[in-house]
C-alpha cells in the first residue's frame, strides 16, 4: 500500500477548478469581512445573489457535525459491517449528557451533580468556554463506557437481528427522556443550554446583530476544528491495519476468526469508538440548537446519515464526508426552501434518491465511474450557483421550463426549483437537476461546453464523451 503522492497530486490538479468551485460555493458567503473579497461578497449578498454569511455559517456548522456523525456510522457499519439503524441513540445521549454535565443535574430539589465551573479561554481571538468542550468530551467518554457494556451484549447478534435491536434502542431512549425521566430531562421541552460555548470577548464594543454574526462565525471555526480532528482520527483508524481487519470481519467473520483475529474484540472496540464520536456530534448539535430535545433520538437522524454515507460511498471515509456535504447542502439550499408547504419533503426525496443510488451506483459517488462522478460534481456546483439567482433560466434560454408549473402545484419558495432545467440542444434532450438534487448531467458536448465555460471550469473538463 505505497502512497503514490504524484498520482494524487495529478488527480487534485485535474480537478482544481472543481475543488476551487466547491470551496467558493461553500465558503464564499462567509468571506464578507475579508480585505479584497469582502466588498463584492457584501454586494452580492445585499442584492440576494448570495445567501448571507449567517445562514451559510449555520449550514456549515450542521453539515460539519453531521460529517462527524456520518463518518462514525460509516466506521461501524461501512467498515465492520455491523449495520446500525439507530445510531441516533448515541447522538441523543451525547446531547443530553453533555448538557447535564455542564449545567448540573437536579432531581426534584436534590442536587445530584453540581455542574462545571465556567472556564473562559482565548485561543486565536476566539473567546470561548472551555468547560463546555470538556463536558462534551467527558459525556462522550461516559457513553463510550456505556457502549462497551451494551456492545458486548448486542454485538453477539448478527446481521438483521443486530440491526433490529439498534432500531429499537433509540425509540426506547426517546420514551425514557420524554415520558419517564421527565423530571431531569425536561420532558418534551428538553434541556435548555444556559451557558454558551462562544462568549462575548471582554472589552468588545459589538452589539446586537454584529455580535451575533461574530459568534456564529467563531462557532463555525470551533465546530470545523472539531470535525477535522474527529474525522482525521477516524480516517487514520480506517486506513490502518485496524481498518483492514474491520473490513475482513465485514467480508467473512469465520475466515477472519480462523486467521487469528479476535472478532468480538474488534467489533466491540469499533462500536465504542463509533459511539464516542457520535456522542461528540450530539454534544455539538445540542450547542447549535441551544437545547437537547428528544428530536435528537429521531430515527430520521439515523436514516439521514445512512443515506448520506451510501450516496457518498459506503465503507469509505471520504464518501461519507462528500455525501454528507453534498446532500446536506442540497437539502438546506433548495429542498427546504423549494417546498415550504411540504415540511418533510426531504424524506421523500432522500428515499427516492436512495433507491436510485442503490440500483445504479451501489458503491456510491466516490466509487462511481469517473464520467458519472465528474458530472455529478459539476452538477452539484452548477446547481448551487444556479440557486443564487432568482430565475430558472438565467444562462441558457430554456425551450421549456417546468419550474413555474411545479411551483404552482407544490408551493413556491424563495429559491425553489432553480436547479431544474430541461431543454433541447442538437436534437437531444438534456435533463439535469430535480430540485437541486442531481439526478444526472448527461448532455451533448455543446451544452456541456457552454455551461462549464460560463463557470470558468471548462479547462478542467478534459475530454468529454457524452453517453449515447
Amino acid at each position, binding site marked *: 500500500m505505497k502512497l503514490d503522492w504524484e498520482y494524487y497530486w495529478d488527480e487534485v490538479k485535474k480537478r482544481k477548478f472543481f475543488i476551487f468551485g466547491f470551496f467558493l460555493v461553500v465558503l464564499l458567503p462567509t468571506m464578507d469581512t475579508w480585505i479584497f473579497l469582502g466588498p463584492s461578497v457584501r454586494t452580492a449578498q445585499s442584492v440576494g445573489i448570495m445567501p448571507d454569511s449567517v445562514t451559510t455559517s449555520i449550514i456549515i456548522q450542521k453539515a460539519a457535525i453531521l460529517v462527524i456523525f456520518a463518518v462514525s456510522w460509516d466506521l461501524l457499519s461501512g467498515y465492520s459491517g455491523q449495520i446500525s439503524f439507530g445510531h441516533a441513540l448515541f447522538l441523543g445521549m451525547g446531547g443530553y449528557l453533555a448538557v447535564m454535565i455542564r449545567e448540573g443535574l437536579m432531581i426534584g430539589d436534590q442536587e445530584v451533580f453540581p455542574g462545571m465551573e465556567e472556564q473562559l479561554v482565548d485561543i486565536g481571538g476566539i473567546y470561548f468556554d472551555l468547560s463546555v468542550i470538556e463536558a462534551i468530551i467527558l459525556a462522550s467518554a461516559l457513553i463510550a463506557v456505556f457502549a462497551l457494556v451494551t456492545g458486548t451484549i448486542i454485538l453477539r447478534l448478527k446481521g438483521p437481528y443486530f440491526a433490529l435491536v439498534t432500531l429499537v434502542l433509540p425509540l426506547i431512549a426517546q420514551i425514557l427522556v420524554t415520558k419517564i425521566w421527565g423530571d431531569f430531562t425536561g420532558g418534551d421541552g428538553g434541556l435548555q443550554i444556559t451557558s454558551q460555548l462562544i462568549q462575548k470577548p471582554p472589552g468588545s464594543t459589538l452589539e446586537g446583530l454584529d455580535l451575533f454574526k461574530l459568534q456564529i462565525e467563531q462557532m463555525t471555526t470551533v465546530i470545523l476544528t472539531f470535525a477535522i480532528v474527529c474525522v482525521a482520527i477516524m480516517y487514520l483508524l480506517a486506513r*490502518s491495519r*485496524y481498518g483492514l481487519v474491520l*473490513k475482513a470481519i465485514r*467480508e467473512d467473520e*469465520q475466515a477472519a476468526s480462523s486467521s*487469528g483475529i479476535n472478532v468480538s474484540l474488534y467489533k466491540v472496540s469499533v462500536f465504542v469508538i463509533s459511539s464516542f464520536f457520535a456522542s461528540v456530534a450530539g454534544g455539538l448539535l445540542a450547542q447549535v440548537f441551544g437545547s437537547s430535545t428528544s428530536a435528537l433520538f429521531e430515527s430520521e437522524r439515523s436514516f439521514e446519515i445512512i443515506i448520506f454515507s451510501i450516496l457518498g460511498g459506503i465503507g469509505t471515509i471520504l464518501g461519507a464526508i462528500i455525501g454528507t456535504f453534498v446532500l446536506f447542502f442540497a437539502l438546506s439550499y433548495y429542498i427546504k426552501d423549494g417546498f415550504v408547504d411540504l415540511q418533510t419533503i426531504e424524506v421523500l426525496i432522500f428515499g427516492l434518491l436512495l433507491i436510485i443510488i442503490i440500483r445504479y451506483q451501489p458503491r456510491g459517488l466516490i466509487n462511481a465511474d469517473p464520467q458519472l462522478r465528474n458530472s455529478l460534481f459539476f452538477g452539484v456546483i452548477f446547481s448551487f450557483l444556479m440557486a443564487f439567482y432568482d430565475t430558472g433560466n438565467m444562462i441558457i434560454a430554456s425551450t421549456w421550463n417546468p419550474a413555474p408549473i411545479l411551483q404552482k402545484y407544490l408551493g413556491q419558495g424563495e429559491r425553489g426549483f432553480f436547479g431544474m432545467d430541461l431543454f433541447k440542444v442538437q436534437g437531444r434532450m438534456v435533463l439535469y437537476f430535480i430540485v437541486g438534487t442531481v439526478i444526472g448531467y448527461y448532455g451533448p458536448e455543446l451544452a456541456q461546453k457552454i455551461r462549464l465555460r460560463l463557470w470558468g471550469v471548462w479547462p478542467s473538463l478534459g475530454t468529454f464523451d457524452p453517453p449515447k
Partner: protein
Amino acid sequence: MTEVALSVRGLSKSFSGLKAVNNIHFDLKKNEIMGLIGPNGSGKSTTFNTITGIIPADSGSVKVFGEEVMGRPPHEISSLGLSRTFQNTRLWRELTVLENLMIPPKNQFGTSVLNALMPWKYKKQEGELIEKAYTILKLLEIEHMAENYASELSGGQSKLVDIGRLLMSDAKILMLDEPVAGVAGPLTEKIFQTLKKLRKELGLTILIIEHNMDFILRKGIDHIVVMANGEEILNGPPDIVRQSLDVIDAYLGE
C-alpha cells in the same frame, strides 16, 4: 521420539442424530505431512471445523503442541500456530489480493487502536510484510493480480491466494482443505513441491484433505487417515492405504 504437534482423541460431533464425526483418533507428529481422505460426506471437513473451533465438538480432546484447545474460540486456537483453509475458498472478497495476504500475520503493530493513529510506527513492519507477500505471490504465480479485488479472481486463483494467506500467517501447522481442487495440473505439482520445501525449511506440519487420490498417494506423504461415514477406517502409510480393500470399498461401494 519426535514431538506430537496435533493430537486428536475421541473426537465426535453429531448434527441432530447424524454422526458426522465419530470417535476419531490420530496423532500428527511434528514435521510430518498427513493426508485425510474419504468419500463425500465422510466427515473430513467437519473434523477440520471441530479441530479449529469453528464448530464446537460434542466430545473428545484436541491438543495443539500439548495444549488442550477443546472449546476455545477459533482465534485463540489459531494463535497457537494452527492455520487452515476452507473447502469453498473464503477470501475477503472486497479486499485486494495483497490486502488479503496482509491480514493473517500475527503481532502487527497497526492492528491496535492506539498504534493505528501513529502511521510512522507501523510503516516499517508493513513494508517488510508487503515484501514477504510479494515473494509468496511470485511463488504462487499470481503476482500480477496483487492489486485486484479477490472477487475478481477465478476459482483456482482464489485457492492459491488462500494458500498464500496460510503461508503469510507464520503458522506451525497448516490444515489444507482440498488445496488443489480446481488448480491446473503443473501448478498442483508446484504447490506440492512448495509445501514439501517449506516443511523442510521451516519445520512445518501439514494436514491435507484431498479427494484426488493421485495427489495424496504420491511419495512424500507420511501417513494417511481414511474416513468413511464419520468413522476412521484406516490409519497408516500410503503403501498400506493403496493396497487396502476397505479403502477401495469405501470409495467404490460394495
